[in-house]
Structure formats: structure tokens, C-alpha cells
């Protein structure tokens, strides 16, 4: 829908006349009248945009955008944070083990001191190869720094996208807080479980899961397995 943005020529002529005749008060009043028409047109345009946005959001199937904004985006952030912390833990465990083995090779190196020269040289050579491989293992763990930085950045971008969507939802006169829970019917839930859903890393997905191998064993034990 187009708005009339035409300026009334008579109104402008009147303004010019007022200025030429140095009637300041009249000129100001005419100018105000002209700008107020423009302002109200602008207001109508913004209000139309908002109405369109509201309609568009309403027409989306099952409010999918609203549900995505409320549930999927936080879910993605939670999953990415799981990746960040899991890779960090794994790297740190690997580093700890490698450091322990380095200490052991140091002790072994000391123990070769008492051996005859030719044997000592042979052991030294092997130990030095072990140390080289261990150093390689430790350096490889630096992947965590790189992937962690990238993932942190992705989390930031997603959070900012989330904020924009919440703002958009607000602007379209929807209440973010009253967006309902995503409901999956029993058949759909069972089908996705049979397909495999991966690690249950979000608070929501942790419900009704075995928390440890002991839990699994207890459950199977009840069935005689």
C-alpha cells in the first residue's frame, strides 16, 4: 500500500507568502502543519509494517518461528556449550596423561645412567622418540583453543540473533513468555528415540535418562541381563 507523500502546493505557496511578508508566526504554524502531515504518514507506515509483521508471524505454520526462537535457539546454545566443555575436558585429560608419561620417561632416562654405554644409548634413543610423540600429542591438543574460540564466537552470534528475534516478537505484539512448550506426540518421540537422538546434553533432554553406566546396569539387572 502506497502513502500519499505529495506536498500540498497551496500550503507551500502560503508558507512562501508568509515568509515574504515576514509574518514569522504564521510561517511557523504553516511549517508545523506541513511537517505534522509527514510525521503522521511516517507513523502510518511504521504501524502498517508492524501489522504486516504480526500477520506474518501469525500465519507461520504452528508458530514455528516463535517456537524456534523460544526453544531451539537456547537448545543450540546449550549444545554448543556442551561441545566446548567436553572438548576442553578431553584435552585437559589428554595433557595430564601425556605429562605423567613424560615424567615416567624422565625417571627411565635417569635409570639408564648405570647401564653400559651402548645399551644406554639405545634406551636413550627410544625414550627420546617416546618424548617426541608425547610432545606431538600435547601440541595436537591446541586444536581445543582454536575450535573453542570459533565455537565461542558462534555462541555469541546465536545469542545476538536470539535477542533480535525476541525484540522482533515483542514488536509484533506477541508475548515471548506465553509462547507454549514444544509438544512432541508419543509416536513422534518414540520414532526419534529409535532413530537415535545422541547424547542428552540439555537440561530438558536429561529427563528420564540413565545418568551413568551403573544406572544402565541396574535397569538391565532388573530385567535379568
Amino acid at each position, binding site marked *: 500500500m502506497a502513502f500519499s507523500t505529495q506536498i500540498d502546493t497551496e500550503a507551500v505557496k502560503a508558507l512562501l507568502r508568509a515568509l515574504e511578508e515576514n509574518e514569522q508566526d504564521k510561517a511557523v504554524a504553516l511549517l508545523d502543519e506541513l511537517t505534522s502531515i509527514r510525521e503522521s504518514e511516517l507513523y502510518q507506515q511504521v504501524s502498517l509494517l508492524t501489522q504486516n509483521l504480526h500477520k506474518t508471524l501469525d500465519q507461520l505454520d504452528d508458530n514455528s518461528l516463535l517456537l524456534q526462537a523460544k526453544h531451539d535457539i537456547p537448545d543450540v546454545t546449550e549444545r554448543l556449550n556442551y561441545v566446548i566443555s567436553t572438548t576442553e575436558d578431553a584435552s585437559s585429560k589428554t595433557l595430564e596423561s601425556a605429562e605423567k608419561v613424560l615424567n615416567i620417561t624422565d625417571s627411565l632416562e635417569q635409570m639408564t645412567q648405570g647401564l653400559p654405554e651402548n645399551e644406554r644409548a639405545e634406551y636413550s634413543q627410544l625414550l627420546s622418540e617416546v618424548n617426541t610423540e608425547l610432545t606431538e600429542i600435547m601440541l595436537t591438543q591446541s586444536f581445543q583453543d582454536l575450535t573453542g574460540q570459533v565455537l565461542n564466537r558462534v555462541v555469541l552470534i546465536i545469542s545476538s540473533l536470539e535477542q533480535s528475534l525476541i525484540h522482533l516478537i515483542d514488536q509484533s505484539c506477541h508475548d515471548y513468555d506465553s509462547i507454549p512448550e514444544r509438544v512432541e506426540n508419543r509416536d513422534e518421540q518414540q520414532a526419534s528415540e*529409535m532413530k*537415535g*537422538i545422541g*547424547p542428552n546434553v540439555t537440561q530438558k533432554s536429561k529427563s528420564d535418562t*540413565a545418568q*551413568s553406566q551403573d544406572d544402565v546396569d541396574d*535397569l*538391565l539387572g532388573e*530385567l535379568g541381563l
Partner: protein
Amino acid sequence: MQINRDMNILVVDDFSTMRRIVKNLLKELGFHKFDEADDGATAWPMVQSGKYDFIVSDWNMPEMTGIDLLRHVRADENLKETPFLLITAEAKRSQILEAAQAGVDGYIVKPFTAATLNGKIHKIFERVAEKQAEKQNG
């Protein structure tokens, strides 16, 4: 109990890292005959050859899941006794119960330890030995 360390084992997982880890752990336990498959769909024709004494499989794989592979195995008259261990990140109680109903012999949730794998393998083959003894006696 003595477990046959020469048995043929099929390791099924879509992640090559995981296949490598499982194979290395099995090697540490003294096993040395392995084949690999990256999906239930590629594993099934291999299993049908009748070569394998033990199947270790992931659950969540793109073409055919581990639970479907298990069901195929249990539904085949010649293969139904094959010991089947699931190593998976799937940890919903309903999923574990489903696997038990489908006839799984062991269920390990990831991440797991070498000791857990060792314990489960022992338990599985103890039960296999018990079943064989029952058959012979019966």
C-alpha cells in the same frame, strides 16, 4: 573363564575415531581379529556371511541404526545367537529397555572406560558359555 581371543569381531560405528578406540581397547584385552563397518546397512551383509562371533555396534547411524541391525540379527535363524554389544550415547531409559527387548547382550553408554568394556565382554561370554552348557546338558 577362558574367552576365545581368536574370535572374529565386527565393530560398527559411523565415527572412525570411535571404531579406532574400540579396536585398540579390544586389542589391549587380547583380541586381534577385527573388521569394521561404518553403518548398520554396510554391516548387515558382512554379518550375513556368518563370519562374526561377536558384534559391537553404535546405535545412532545414518542409514541403519544399531538397534535395527540387532533386530535383523535376532530375526535370522542362523545368526540369532550372535552376541551383540551396543556402545552408544543413547541413554533414555525407554531406549535401554527397547534394546533389552530386542535381545541385546550388553549395553554401554558413552563415554565409557576400558574396565567397563572388559567387564561387559566377560559377562556376555560367561552367559554364552552357560547357555552352551545348558544346551549340552539338556
